[in-house]
C-alpha cells in the first residue's frame, strides 16, 4: 500500500519516545510523540493516527483511561500498550477493553517489527475491505432499473426513500414490469445489504410445500423429510425476504404469515422450538390486493401489515419514452453475454417497438431483443428481426408446429450454407438430431431443389 502509516508514541519517559521515534523513522513511518495522555488526546482531537503506541503507566492519566477516551473519540486507530513486567495484568485488561496488543519493555527489536507489521497489515486489510464494500455498494445500486420517464423516476425516488427504513413494502404492477428488480434495489440500498435477500415465488408452490419452504422442517416431519432444513425466513435473518405473487397464498398461509410478521418468531414444520429471525418483508403482486380484501379473498389485517409502503411499477405502455433506453441497455447486455460487438437498431425497428403495447412489459421487450440478436445479421437489429414485422402483435403462426420447424431449420441451413455443425450449434441440437430432421422433412439445398 502506498499510504504512509502514521504512529503516535505516548510515553512520559523521553528516552523511550526518542528511541522509538528514531526506530520508526528509520522504518519510513510518519511518527509523532506525546509526553502524556492528555497531550496525546489533544493531538488526536485534530489529527488521526493509524497506530497509537502508549505506555500503560503514566502520571496523571494512565494508558487504560487514555485508551477508553480514544475509543470515545471514534478514532479507528490501533492501540498497542507498552508495559513493564509488573503491569501485565493491566495490559490484559487493556486487551479486554479492545486494545490491539501489548508489548513488554524492553522489546526485542524483532517482536516490535512483527507487531507493527501485523498492525499495518490489519490497517491495510481494513482499508481494502472498506474500498471493496464501497465498490460493491456502487455495483448494487439501482442500475438495473432502467428508465428516464417521470413514472420511473417516481419509482426510483420511492426506492431511495424506503430503502433505509425497515418498513414492509408491497410492489404492485403487471407481470414483467420488473417488480423483483425493484425489490433488489430496495435491499441493496438498505442497511441490510450485507445480509441475504431471499426470494420466494409463492405462486410456484402448493400450500404444504410453501409452508415447509418458508418455515423449514424437522427431520421426519413428513414423508421424505430426511434431514432438518432451514426455512426461507431463517435464511433471511438480518436481510430481506421477497415474497413474489403474495396474492396466491392460501387463507391458512395468510394466518401463518401474519403471525410471523407480528412476532418475528415461528416454528419449523414438525418442530417444537421457537425460532427468531430478523428480516424485512417485501412483497410483490400483479393483482389488486385491496379488491381482494373487499372480496374477502385476502386478509385485511395481513394487507395492512404488509402495505406500509406501496410502490406501483408502471407498465411499459405507460412509459414508452423509456423504450429506446431499455433497448440500448438490453442490446449491450446481450452483446456482452454473447461476446459480440455492440450492434445498432434501425430507426424503423425502434419506431415499431414504440408503437407496440407490450402486454408482457419489459420482459417481453427483453426477450424480443435477445431473439433479434440471435437470429439477426449481427450488424444491426432490423425491423424484420422483430416478431412485429407484419404489424401484428407477436403473431401466432397459422402453420402447424412441424411446418414451422421445417421452415426454421431450412432457413438456418441456407443461412449457413448447409454447414451442419454451425447450423446445429445455432439450433442448439446435436448434429445427429439435425441429420434426422433433414431426413424427416426431406430438406435439400437450394441447388439440389433446382435440379
Amino acid at each position: 500500500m502506498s499510504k504512509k502509516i502514521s504512529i503516535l508514541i505516548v510515553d512520559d519517559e523521553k528516552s523511550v519516545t526518542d528511541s522509538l521515534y528514531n526506530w520508526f523513522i528509520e522504518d519510513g513511518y510518519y511518527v509523532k510523540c506525546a509526553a502524556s495522555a492528555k497531550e496525546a488526546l489533544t493531538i488526536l482531537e485534530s489529527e488521526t493516527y493509524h497506530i497509537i503506541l502508549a505506555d500503560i503507566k503514566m502520571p496523571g492519566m494512565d494508558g487504560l483511561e487514555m485508551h477508553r477516551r480514544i475509543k470515545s473519540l471514534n478514532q479507528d486507530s490501533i492501540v498497542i500498550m507498552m508495559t513493564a513486567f509488573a503491569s501485565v495484568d493491566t495490559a490484559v485488561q487493556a486487551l479486554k477493553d479492545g486494545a490491539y496488543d501489548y508489548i513488554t519493555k524492553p522489546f526485542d527489536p524483532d517482536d516490535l517489527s512483527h507487531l507493527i507489521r501485523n498492525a499495518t497489515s490489519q490497517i491495510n486489510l481494513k482499508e481494502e475491505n472498506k474500498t471493496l464494500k464501497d465498490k460493491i455498494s456502487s455495483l448494487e445500486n439501482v442500475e438495473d432499473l432502467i428508465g428516464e420517464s417521470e413514472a420511473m423516476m417516481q419509482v426510483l425516488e420511492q426506492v431511495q426513500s424506503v430503502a433505509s427504513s425497515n418498513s414492509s413494502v408491497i410492489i404492485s404492477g403487471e407481470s414483467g414490469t420488473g417488480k423483483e428488480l425493484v425489490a433488489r434495489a430496495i435491499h441493496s440500498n438498505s442497511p441490510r445489504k450485507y445480509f441475504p435477500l431471499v426470494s420466494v415465488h409463492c405462486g410456484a408452490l402448493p400450500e404444504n410445500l410453501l409452508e415447509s419452504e418458508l418455515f423449514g422442517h424437522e427431520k421426519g416431519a413428513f414423508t421424505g423429510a430426511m434431514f432438518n432444513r432451514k426455512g426461507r425466513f431463517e435464511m433471511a435473518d438480518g436481510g430481506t425476504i421477497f415474497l413474489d405473487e403474495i396474492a396466491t397464498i392460501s387463507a391458512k398461509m395468510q394466518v401463518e404469515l401474519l403471525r410471523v410478521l407480528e412476532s418475528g418468531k415461528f416454528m419449523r414444520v414438525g418442530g417444537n422450538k421457537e425460532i427468531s429471525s430478523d428480516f424485512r418483508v417485501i412483497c410483490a403482486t400483479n393483482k389488486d390486493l385491496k379488491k381482494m380484501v373487499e372480496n374477502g379473498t385476502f386478509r385485511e389485517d395481513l394487507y395492512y401489515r404488509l402495505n406500509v409502503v406501496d410502490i406501483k411499477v408502471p407498465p411499459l405502455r405507460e412509459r414508452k419514452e423509456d423504450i429506446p433506453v431499455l433497448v440500448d441497455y438490453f442490446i449491450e447486455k446481450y452483446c456482452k453475454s454473447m461476446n459480440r460487438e455492440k450492434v445498432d437498431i434501425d430507426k424503423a425497428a425502434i419506431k415499431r417497438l414504440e408503437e407496440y403495447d407490450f402486454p408482457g412489459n419489459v420482459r417481453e421487450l427483453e426477450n424480443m431483443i435477445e431473439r433479434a440478436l440471435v437470429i439477426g445479421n449481427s450488424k444491426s437489429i432490423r425491423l424484420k428481426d422483430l416478431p412485429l414485422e407484419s404489424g401484428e402483435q407477436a403473431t401466432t403462426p397459422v402453420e402447424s408446429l412441424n411446418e414451422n420447424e421445417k421452415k426454421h431449420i431450412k432457413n438456418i441451413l441456407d443461412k449457413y450454407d448447409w454447414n451442419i455443425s454451425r447450423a446445429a450449434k445455432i439450433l442448439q441440437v446435436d448434429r445427429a438430431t439435425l441429420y434426422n430432421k433433414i431426413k424427416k422433412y426431406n430438406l435439400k439445398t437450394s441447388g439440389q431443389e433446382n435440379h
Partner: protein
Amino acid sequence: MKEQKTITLVAFGYIDRSFVENVALAVEIELNTEVTTMEGHLDLSNYYDVKRRQYNGDELLKFVDNSYNSYPGKTMGLFGVDLFIPILTHIFGQAYLNGNTGVVSHFRLNNEFYGLKANKQLLQERFIKVVIHELGHTYGLTHCHVPTCVMRSSTYVEDLDQKSSSFCDNCRESIN
C-alpha cells in the same frame, strides 16, 4: 562546510586493526569515497547500565555526535560491547537519520555469542553490512524492502546474512 562524502571510522576499545582496515576498505568501495580510520579514547564504564549489563547506545551516540562534530563528513563509532537503547533489548547499531554520526557494535554479530563456532570471516561480513547500513541512515535512507539491499531492516544476524553489503539501485540513486 563539511564535505559530505568523507567518512571517518573511530574504533573504541580493543578492535583488531586489520579488522577495522578491512571494514574501511569495503565501505570505501561501496560508497566510493575516502574512508579514514582512527582510535577513539573513552571510559566506557560511564555508559554501562548495571541493571541491564549493557552499554547505552543512545548516550554513546550523543557522545560520538558531540565529540566528532567538527570532523568532515560522516563519523561512525565502532564498538565491541553490547549496546542497548532504553526501549529495545539490544541494537546492532544506530545513527541519526540525515545526520553525521552513528554507532555500531560487533558484540552480537559474533557466532560465539550464540554458542556457535567462531567465524571471523562471517563476523567481518556482518560488521561491514551493519556499518554501511547505519551510514545509509546518515545519508537519509530509511529501511528498504528489497531483500538483498543492505538497507533492509535486520533485527537478527540471520537477517544480516540474508542480505548483501550493497545498496539496491533505488537506495544508491538516493545517496547520489
